[in-house]
């Protein structure tokens, strides 16, 4: 591959400006692009662990731990990559399936306590969705300032 030098980026200041642009574009890509498949598999795995703990654990602590692990992963994704994977119909179906299974298992296993568990699960999802949305907005404003700087 031929290489060249250029007056556009041959000074350290211009190189830093170019790196800032690269960083801003990477954030934009992570926010709106289609992520590598492995991120989806990890998220599905954590969801499966949550369901497994719910089905076999018979323990509120195990269920809560798995649920928290799942939420922690989603928050980590936002911090690490700038956003969650792009939402698709597949995600909507998977989410509905998880909620339906959770409600069904809660009703079957916990009797009266089931009235409380679904509310907690839905509440957790709602709170995490609001928090994630806020984090995404902050990432977007950060990206906008990075673009202004360049």
């Amino acid at each position: 591959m031929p290489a060249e030098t250029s007056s556009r980026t041959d000074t350290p200041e211009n190189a830093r400006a170019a790196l800032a642009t690269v960083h801003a574009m990477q954030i934009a890509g992570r926010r709106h692009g289609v992520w590598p498949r492995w991120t989806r598999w990890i998220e599905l795995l954590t969801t499966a662990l949550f369901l497994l703990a719910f089905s076999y654990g018979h323990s509120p602590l195990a269920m809560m731990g798995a649920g928290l692990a799942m939420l922690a992963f989603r928050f980590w994704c936002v911090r690490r990559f700038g956003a969650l994977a792009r939402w698709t119909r597949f995600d909507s179906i998977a989410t509905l399936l998880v909620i339906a299974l959770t409600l069904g298992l809660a009703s079957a296993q916990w009797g009266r306590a089931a009235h409380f568990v679904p509310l907690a699960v839905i509440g957790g999802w709602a709170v995490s969705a609001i928090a994630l949305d806020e984090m995404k907005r902050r990432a977007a404003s950060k990206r906008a300032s990075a673009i202004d700087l360049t």
Partner: protein
Amino acid sequence: MSVPQFDAVIHAPIRLQICALLSPVQHAEFQLVRDQLAVSDSVLSKHLSQLVDADYVVQTRLPFNGRQRMMLSLTKKGRSAFAAHVETLQALASIAAEGG
């Protein structure tokens, strides 16, 4: 000070931004790239064709959310070239930091 060697294909600002946008993801839509770079379809196509010719980017039509969309992705060769280009930029930027 040695003269930095930049990749001729990625060196142009628009093409550098295209590669940066595609680097963390598997695919990105043509429309998304165009909007993020704030360029016209023709300008983006022109720069994309150079990246495609260099075997740095591939364009594919994929069904996404029920519609056929033009998706762009970096090839393995493109990722390596982009990583090397960023390393060169980082090395150059670090000269300023070390110097003062």
